[in-house]
């Protein structure tokens, strides 16, 4: 057997969820092996098991044929396994060399021999074409450069099995090209690579084989040479049950939200939204599709006033929103079901009742002369709990005690009940069970039918396809194409999302 890694029937549970259920992955020496799956499918978990950060409940791992117990990243290191984490594990204030050698430093008279270390780093970086400045501080170098440091960390420790967790998600196209080159050099040097990515094009261009997992279960492994992007996309998003949401054709009316030339920077100061234009009309649901990290979140934050827009304009019913504080934006008529319900959507330790008035607590009848009127608040909460079928013992229960789906329903109740002209639903069904998903979809459609404009941002293709009327695909901070939901399919969308038809989209505009 020429497998360097065999993960057999791995099972990993987290409280309330089986992240990996009987997954098998086999890595051949000298290959680049893709690991593909939707968000939350269990890819990172599987790799963390391999790297010793998590212990599996069941299953065995063999490295170069030998059965091993990887209980610690140290053991993984010793076995020659290195991991480039999706979220970089770098100390900002340290230099490149310090980050690379830390925990394994060459010394001279008890002192870290930085010169020697830097020389080694340089030697390795030359050998694999990973040029870095060994003395530069991490906080001063680009993301692409930081990633090289991550790779160098593993190589410095003599890893010959490398795991890359979504390495391209944070890179510019040029950087991606460089990374692809690096990976090719690495395998040429005899290393083996597992690559996690959502971008099919990348898989097609560098990978030898691809293992697909879905909802914690292994779907299968295919040779890349014997498949194509369409087939991979189908494997990834395919569902046993395919709920078709019932809805009548949309009757779009006047434009509610008009975005023009919008540019927004992300937290690192890089343009995440680039001169974006988009119109959304009353009575339609516009789906915003795209791979995670293509600027969708920043776009929505800019609309809602949570993030400063750099350039451009956002008009709601002809009223300029750019420059307004979040409260003013809300009052202007925007409802926002936020992407991260725990971070933004709820104060988990507040009761459901208190969360229901998070946007309106300062208004009558919930308060008068700054004194809260709890009877009114809880009465409202009770009504909404009923209307929106939020399953909770009572309106006094803390939000924390509710299941994710019911938390989400409470947020939707709050946002929709204010009858905003424009409703943003960002990943409204993430992590929810089928029943909850269905009710939320129905709610969105009924809002549309009431003549509201709805923006649905989702990473899940069938959600986008089933619920939206038009679909805008976002790629690298721009809308690459807008298609009618009933005239497209998963395959086409998957390609668009991977930037596959960027050129064509550009022509269409």
């Amino acid at each position, binding site marked *: 057997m020429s497998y360097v890694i065999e993960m057999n029937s791995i099972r990993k549970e987290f409280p309330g969820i089986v992240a990996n259920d009987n997954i098998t992955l086999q890595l051949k020496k000298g290959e680049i092996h893709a690991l593909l799956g939707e968000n939350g499918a269990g890819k990172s978990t599987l790799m963390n098991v391999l790297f010793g950060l998590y212990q599996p409940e069941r299953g065995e791992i063999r490295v170069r044929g030998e059965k091993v117990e990887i209980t610690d990243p140290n053991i993984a290191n010793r076995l020659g396994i290195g991991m480039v984490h999706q979220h970089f*594990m770098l100390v900002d204030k340290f230099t490149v060399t310090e980050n690379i050698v830390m925990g394994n*430093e060459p010394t001279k008279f008890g002192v*870290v021999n930085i010169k020697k270390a830097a020389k080694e780093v340089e030697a390795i970086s030359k050998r694999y074409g990973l040029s870095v400045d060994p003395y530069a501080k991490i906080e001063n170098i680009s993301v692409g450069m930081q990633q090289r440091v991550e790779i160098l960390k593993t190589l410095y420790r003599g890893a010959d099995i490398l795991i890359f967790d979504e390495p391209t998600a944070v890179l510019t196209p040029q950087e991606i090209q460089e990374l692809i080159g690096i990976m090719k050099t690495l395998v040429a040097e005899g290393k083996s690579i597992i690559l996690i990515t959502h971008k099919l094009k990348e898989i097609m261009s560098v990978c030898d084989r691809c293992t697909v997992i879905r909802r914690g279960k292994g779907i299968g492994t295919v040779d890349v040479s014997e498949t194509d992007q369409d087939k991979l996309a189908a494997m990834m998003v395919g569902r046993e049950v395919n709920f078709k949401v019932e809805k009548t054709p949309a009757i779009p009316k006047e434009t509610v939200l008009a975005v023009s030339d919008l540019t927004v920077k992300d937290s690192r100061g890089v343009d995440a939204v680039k001169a974006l234009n988009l119109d959304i009309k009353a009575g339609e649901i516009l789906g915003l599709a795209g791979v995670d990290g293509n600027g969708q979140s920043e776009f929505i934050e800019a609309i809602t006033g949570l993030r400063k827009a750099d350039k451009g304009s956002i008009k709601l019913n002809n009223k300029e929103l750019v420059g307004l504080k979040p409260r003013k934006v809300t009052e202007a008529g925007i409802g926002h079901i936020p992407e991260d319900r725990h971070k933004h959507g709820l104060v988990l330790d507040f009761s459901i009742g208190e969360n229901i008035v998070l946007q309106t607590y300062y208004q009558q009848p919930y308060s008068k002369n700054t004194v809260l009127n709890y009877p009114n608040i809880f009465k409202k909460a009770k009504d909404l709990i009923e209307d929106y079928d939020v399953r909770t013992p009572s309106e006094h229960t803390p939000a924390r005690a509710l299941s994710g789906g019911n938390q989400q329903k409470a947020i939707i109740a709050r946002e929709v009940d204010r009858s905003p002209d424009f409703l943003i639903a960002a990943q409204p069904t993430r992590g929810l069970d089928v029943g909850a998903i269905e009710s939320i979809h129905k709610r969105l459609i009924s809002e549309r039918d009431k003549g509201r404009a709805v923006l649905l941002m989702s990473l899940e293709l069938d959600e986008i396809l089933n619920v939206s009327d038009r679909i805008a695909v976002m790629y690298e901070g721009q809308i690459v194409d807008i298609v009618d939901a009933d005239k497209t399919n998963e395959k086409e969308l998957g390609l668009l999302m991977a930037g596959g038809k960027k050129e064509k989209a550009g022509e269409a505009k």
Partner: protein
Amino acid sequence: MDIMQILSLVIPAAIFAAAPLILTALGGLFSERAGVVNIGLEGLMVMGAFTAIITTLTLEGMGMSGMMVIILALIISILIGSVFSLFHAVASITFRADQIVSGVALNFLAVGLTVFLVRLLYNKGQTDYISNRIYRMDVPVLSDIPFIGPLFFSSAYVTSYVAILLAVVVYFIVFYTPFGLRLRSVGEHPMAADTMGINVNRMRYIGVMLSGAFAGLGGAVFALTVTGNFSGTTIVGQGFMALAALIFGKWNPLGALGAALFFGLAQALSITGQQIPLLSDVPPVFLLIAPYVLTILALAGFVGRAEGPKAIGKPYIKGSR
């Protein structure tokens, strides 16, 4: 008084007053660089002062005297300081207690426990005076250098030099040795350190225990040079000042050294200043509060922003981010 006389009064006094602060701030540095806030420095100093005095008295009772007594007292204070700091370490690292609250508890405990023990051992609220103390001396040769000699090397406490030397040593350890690199990595990004095979909690335990050792030494030096006995009021606020010196010095050993010297200078000036023509017009209270006001200004970024270790104050829980 001429300027030379003023300097020869103020500078040795400043260095002298700074020594316990320097030592304790260095201790705080180990702990905070490892990511554990240490408000308990005060309590650790109390422990050190207590131990030094008790040890000295006990050894004197056994008929010992001389250098040996002092060295033993210092060593035992260091040991007890680091053992006592385990209280903070266990609470904030293993039990994931709020590090600030745990430090506050440590301070309460130190004062309560030491005074309680003094009562138990001696049946009174404060100890007797020790007779083997650390005394001043002239540094041979160096004290004869004109100008520099009288300012820095005549009739000085050896502990002051030890403190300054240790600041340099700690600087070297923290920034140039593998241990230092790992210590800092744990305080900056414990998850990264973990993936590099560094045992985060072990490093943090070491950091906290070193803080106990150094603060214990700081308290001991204070007791053996300044007070000569121990009571509940021997250490009042020096630990907090050391913490301030640490932050003012931007978590850098040499910075902390400078800050502590600055505090010492401010204190010396506030006392000697009453005899200096120009300063005697300044109400002493302004000199008294100067260190605290300046620290706040420094923190607010007017003297350059002080940014602590990134992961400070957060317990490390494997796998969470």
